[in-house]
């Protein structure tokens, strides 16, 4: 079970009225390498991973949900006061006609989220290597969003999220080292 803390993991401040940024951020909301995919991937893989690293997957999955919440806050702030005309100028008219200003799990190109974005092979090494790759892809996605954004306050939060991907990747790499390690087994030569 979870306890919910009614605050964001890191403050989210948006300084410019620029709904187009919301469109780009949607990639991290419902995209293949987004926070939803990450949270669901780890939360599901943890059942069949060796118990030494179950806690790690639970912790990281939980943190990904808090990142999802930050991304949602950014998208909401950028679109909540936009008029239909501004939405149209931002290239979000396709989204608007179906969802109004509601958030939805799509990628930046409007493709709905699908479970095929994630994997659970059951092999611990295969699963952890996928998790490492997912973290690096999420890190790269944050880089490209920062490159497209000139909102310094928003970028501050995005830089925080990018750094977290780096820390998560290191933790998954350590998990691989833990599962490779044979110090505690009897070796017969």
């Amino acid at each position, binding site marked *: 079970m979870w306890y919910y803390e009614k605050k964001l993991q*890191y403050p989210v401040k948006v300084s410019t009225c620029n709904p187009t940024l919301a469109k780009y951020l949607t990639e991290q909301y419902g995209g293949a390498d987004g926070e939803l995919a990450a949270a669901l991937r780890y939360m599901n893989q943890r059942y069949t991973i060796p118990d030494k690293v179950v806690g790690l997957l639970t912790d990281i999955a939980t943190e990904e949900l808090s990142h999802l919440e930050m991304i949602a806050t950014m998208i909401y702030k950028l679109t909540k006061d936009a008029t239909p005309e501004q939405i149209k100028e931002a290239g979000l008219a396709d989204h608007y006609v179906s969802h109004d200003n509601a958030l939805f799990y799509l990628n930046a190109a409007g493709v709905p989220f699908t479970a095929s974005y994630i994997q659970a092979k059951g092999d611990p090494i295969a699963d952890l290597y996928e998790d490492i790759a997912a973290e690096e892809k999420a*890190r*790269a996605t*944050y*880089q490209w969003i*920062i*490159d497209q954004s000139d909102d310094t306050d928003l970028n501050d939060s995005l*830089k*925080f*999220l*990018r*750094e*977290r991907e*780096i*820390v998560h*990747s*290191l933790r998954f*790499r*350590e998990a691989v*080292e833990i599962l490779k390690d044979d110090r505690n087994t009897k070796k017969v030569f």
Partner: protein
Amino acid sequence: MYTQYKYWRPYISPNDPCPPIEIKSYSTPPHLYIGFQPSGLPQFQTAKEALKKGTLWPQLYSPYPNPQKRNERS
């Protein structure tokens, strides 16, 4: 010691339609070189700075965009 960014020169054709970017770069953050984080690494002085940086340990911090960005536009 490692660097957080690597640089390379892509091939430039005399027939390229756009002005070439002569030097391209990519990010190689610290975690690629750590393997298994040793215990007792020095931490940031304040919790506020650690939150701002996104990590407790200066050795894990990766700046973006590249603070020493070379001219990749010309």
